[in-house]
């Protein structure tokens, strides 16, 4: 790293890296210089003046340049005549800083007095009260009296909705610009800004919908006062009444660390989730989460939750006891002679998946992953990204290639971190930028920050990687020839950047992918990584953008995609066991004469038609672990009590096995993890103890000192453990054959894409987000729309998987000609790859 510099803060020597700000140097020796506008993740601006300190530098002789010394041998210090802002001043060698002199104390007192001239001091009804930097710093540095006139306080709007998720209280704002800087620097969605100037400075938004950003909730965390609050938590509870539980987000493969605040109601005695906040994990989500993770937790207390086991009697599902239900299941399994098919969802925990696979395998059945849309999990195990890689910190010696992924929709925090690497905006000391190469058939949000954009036609993903690989080794795209509408210069330029970079990370997603296509794509990407030697080390390797939070865990537990629809997979099975999977709801029916057992949270279409339904616990009601796309195993904890009649999935499967006499019920999830560590080689070093281990993180945020107020929470639940890739474990891995895939042909091709705000069962039930969730729609190119007489907002019908669907058509320039984008998880039949479609208009402009 950079060289170290010695500075003196209140007569204490401290060594800090060159480029460090005075305020951070002081924090290293637990000297909390008060701040409002300063935030260690943002570029400093020095707006609030709260951090004023005395600064001096060693005096040098003007002629000789030699240091000058006092009689006592100490260097002579040249104290600057005015106080300096510690948040903008960079340390220099031998710098002296005083933070406790009367001049400094007086300045702090005055600044607080100024900040309070128009602040309403309504702490008793303010959501921030209790974890508010303004409240805390006023108590420690402010005066109990003000020289300003009470009548001159501003009386302005206190309940301004900046969209549906965030409320603004204009009176409370102290104009620190943390929120606008976060949006500008770190997110790049400049949808909030300042209006007016001076005392009238106010936050505004003109986006439609208001404050249109996937990261809007984070501004309420970093707001040092109660000016920005979430609709979800507003007037919901006082911070000191809340219980705290570390958790992990169940919505995407990033695995953001969550901090769940719950409270027991004084009225009915029931516990409920009051808010979800980020939990600091610098390598995963730093101190941020997206709005889907923050607000998409309400499904756990939805009235559709299953509450008791049910069995089918005389055609009806009736409630029964666990003994009866499990007895029936084990009886059916025993008499099935191995004609058993098991389908397990990618959002089950590792413990659930392990117990599930054991139950099915011991009965000689076969298992598959649900929905199992993408391939390459085995390659991720082999050449997945190196342990300790931090995407945000990648620099100019690294190339990042993102292919077939709209990363901001599929994995927002990875998008956020890749953006940091490519822009190095914000507070990063190291300003060297990674070379970002984005390959996709259409423009996505990543293009704006990409150094190179490579366009291809849907279906040409593998050919694009092969052309890139050829160009990396030979300087031309070779036999692959032209790959798309664009000329090959982009490919060659991108290949040059890859050749020049020491490190290479390839992130592959699921846009327009089938299982087979994705397998081939992952193999082509792996081959490029292996050929260039970019495997088995930090800042190198393969990252899959899975469609669910624990897809990698499913691969690791031996629950792999079948590569075919659920209907085909279960075709001949007498008994079908499903857990966290709803094939019927996604348009893949199950045979009517099979015995169907479903373990689920909700009354899904599959559950309604099953023979036995077993109610399962949600992630906040139990312990477990998920494995992220970059192979980090992370542990989550029970935050809410749960009815004894609802069980965690792993226990359900172990009890069935126990009933059949083929296994024992573990003492708890920790014991299941112990079994996993014995049977799954990559997990041999993983235990609940080391998953819970934490170490000091920098910046020091969310600690007991409340230095940054409500900004995220310190990590007390564990940073998680990354499993070693096979190549890191010392195995040699060689390139594999890339299987050719047949391409769908047709005038219009339906292309499955992922959108963040989908209608998935765990998200659509969070009503607070409903205004942001679209009705089912497709997106079509302007030219194709003209040909098919479709205008923007029309209702159209198309046949998907043999079923007619009615959806809204959006007409857009960003969709390539010939493609119809069909978002996944939009109440419709699931596409397992690109399929030819026909579009018929049924109603012009019925919905706008």
């Amino acid at each position: 790293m950079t060289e170290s510099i010695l500075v003196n803060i209140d007569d204490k020597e401290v060594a800090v890296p060159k480029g460090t700000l005075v305020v951070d140097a002081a924090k290293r020796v637990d000297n909390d210089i008060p701040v409002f506008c300063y935030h260690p993740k943002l570029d400093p601006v020095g707006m609030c003046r709260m951090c004023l300190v005395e600064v001096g530098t060693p005096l040098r002789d003007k002629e000789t340049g030699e240091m000058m010394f006092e009689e006592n041998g100490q260097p002579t210090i040249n104290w600057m005549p005015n106080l300096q802002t510690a948040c903008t001043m960079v340390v220099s060698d031998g710098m002296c800083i005083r933070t406790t002199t009367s001049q400094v104390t007086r300045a702090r007192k005055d600044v607080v007095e100024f900040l309070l001239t128009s602040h309403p001091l309504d702490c008793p009804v303010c959501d921030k009260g209790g974890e508010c930097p303004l409240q805390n710093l006023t108590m420690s540095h402010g005066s109990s009296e003000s020289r300003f006139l009470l009548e001159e306080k501003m009386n302005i709007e206190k309940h301004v909705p900046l969209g549906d998720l965030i409320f603004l209280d204009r009176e409370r704002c102290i104009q620190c610009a943390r929120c606008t800087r976060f949006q500008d620097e770190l997110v790049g969605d400049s949808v909030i800004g300042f209006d007016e100037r001076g005392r009238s400075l106010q936050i505004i938004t003109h986006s439609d919908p208001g404050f249109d950003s996937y990261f809007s909730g984070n501004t309420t965390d970093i707001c040092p006062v109660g000016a920005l609050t979430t609709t979800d938590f507003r007037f919901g509870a006082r911070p000191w009444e809340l219980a705290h539980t570390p958790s992990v987000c169940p919505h995407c493969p990033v695995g953001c660390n969550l901090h769940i605040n719950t409270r027991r109601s004084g009225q009915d005695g029931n516990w409920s989730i009051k808010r979800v906040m980020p939990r600091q994990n610098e390598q995963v989500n730093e101190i941020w989460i997206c709005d889907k993770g923050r607000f998409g937790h309400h499904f756990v207390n939805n009235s559709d939750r299953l509450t008791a086991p049910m069995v089918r009697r005389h055609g009806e599902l009736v409630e029964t006891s666990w003994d009866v239900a499990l007895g029936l299941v084990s009886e059916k399994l025993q008499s099935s002679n191995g004609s058993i098919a098991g389908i397990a969802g990618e959002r089950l925990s590792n413990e659930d998946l392990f117990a599930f696979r054991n139950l099915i395998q011991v009965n000689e059945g076969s298992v598959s992953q649900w929905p199992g849309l993408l391939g390459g999990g085995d390659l991720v195990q082999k050449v997945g990204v190196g342990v300790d890689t931090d995407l945000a910190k990648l620099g100019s010696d690294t190339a990042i290639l993102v292919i077939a992924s709209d990363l901001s929709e599929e994995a927002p925090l990875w998008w956020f971190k890749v953006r940091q690497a490519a822009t190095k905006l914000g507070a990063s000391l190291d300003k060297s930028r990674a070379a970002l190469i984005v390959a996709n058939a259409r423009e996505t949000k990543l293009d704006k920050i990409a150094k190179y954009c490579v366009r291809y036609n849907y279906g040409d993903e593998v050919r694009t990687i092969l052309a890139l690989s050829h160009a990396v080794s030979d300087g031309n795209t070779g036999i692959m020839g032209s790959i798309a509408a664009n000329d090959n210069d982009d490919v060659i330029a991108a290949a040059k950047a890859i050749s020049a970079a020491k490190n290479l990370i390839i992130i592959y997603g699921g846009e327009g992918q089938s299982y087979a296509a994705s397998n081939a794509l992952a193999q082509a990407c792996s081959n490029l990584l292996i050929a260039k030697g970019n495997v088995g080390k930090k800042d190198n390797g393969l990252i899959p953008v899975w469609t669910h939070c624990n897809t990698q865990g499913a691969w690791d537990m031996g629950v792999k995609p079948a590569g075919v629809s659920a209907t085909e997979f279960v075709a001949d099975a007498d008994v079908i066991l499903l857990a966290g999977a709803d094939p019927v709801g996604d348009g893949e029916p199950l045979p009517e004469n099979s015995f169907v057992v479903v373990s689920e949270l909700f009354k899904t279409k599959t559950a309604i038609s099953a023979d036995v339904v077993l109610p399962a616990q949600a992630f906040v009601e139990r312990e477990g672990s998920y494995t992220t796309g970059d192979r980090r195993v992370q542990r989550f904890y029970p935050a809410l009590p749960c009815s004894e009649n609802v069980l965690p999935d792993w226990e359900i499967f172990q009890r069935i096995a126990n009933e059949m006499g083929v296994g024992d019920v573990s003492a708890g999830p920790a014991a299941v993890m112990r079994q996993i560590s014995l049977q799954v080689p990559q997990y041999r070093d993983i235990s609940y103890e080391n998953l819970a281990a934490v170490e000091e993180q920098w910046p020091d945020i969310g600690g007991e000192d409340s230095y940054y107020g409500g900004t995220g929470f310190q990590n007390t639940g564990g940073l998680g453990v990354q499993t070693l890739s096979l190549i890191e474990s010392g195995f040699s891995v060689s390139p594999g054959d890339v299987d050719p895939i047949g391409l769908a042909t047709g005038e219009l091709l339906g292309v499955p894409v992922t959108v963040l705000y989908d209608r998935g069962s765990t998200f659509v039930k969070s009503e607070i987000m409903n205004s942001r969730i679209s009705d089912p729609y497709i997106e079509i190119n302007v030219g194709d729309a003209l040909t098919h007489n479709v205008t923007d907002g029309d209702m159209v019908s198309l046949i998907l998987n043999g079923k007619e669907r009615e959806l809204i058509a959006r007409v857009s320039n960003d969709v390539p000609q010939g493609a119809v984008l069909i978002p996944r998880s939009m109440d419709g039949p699931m596409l397992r790859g690109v399929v030819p479609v026909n579009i018929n208009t049924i109603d012009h402009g019925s919905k706008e």
Partner: protein
Amino acid sequence: MSSNTANQTLRTRYSAEVKDILKRYPDDQKRSAVMPLLFLSQKEGLQATVSVMSEIAQILDISITQVASIVGFYTLYYSHSGGKNRIQICTDLPCALRGADDFADKVCEKLGVKLGETTEDGEFTVESVMCLAACDKAPMFQVQNGDGITYHERQTISDVQAVIEQLGNAEIDKSPEGAE
């Protein structure tokens, strides 16, 4: 969708001017053109409406909120309607020391309005604004109207009277019934 229905006023009515302004900035820094474009948009209507701001945002590939922040910061730009002539009196500290506050009050009195208000005939709006870079020549004001900006320095209240009459007369010629 908004991208399909965006306003085209500037680009159709002032296409040559817009092109000329954009030419002054490098392609990757065209956002810098926001101020001249806003000024251009006020040429006739003297107001940066939401639809004009969204068109400028689209031309420059920035968010409408960013354009609105510029409009909000500079007293040169208006997001609200006002009189045909905007009389903008600098009342910042150096001007105030030379009696600009008092001067502003008198101008208001003359026109029968308060600061920020518009005369009943819709001719004049009086505003106090931030520094106009003529601190040594206070009291001073600028008049902003369809013809652009004119500076009036070292003003007395009778000077203002003359300016008001001159500007008002120009209109009176067009609409005789408006005369006193």
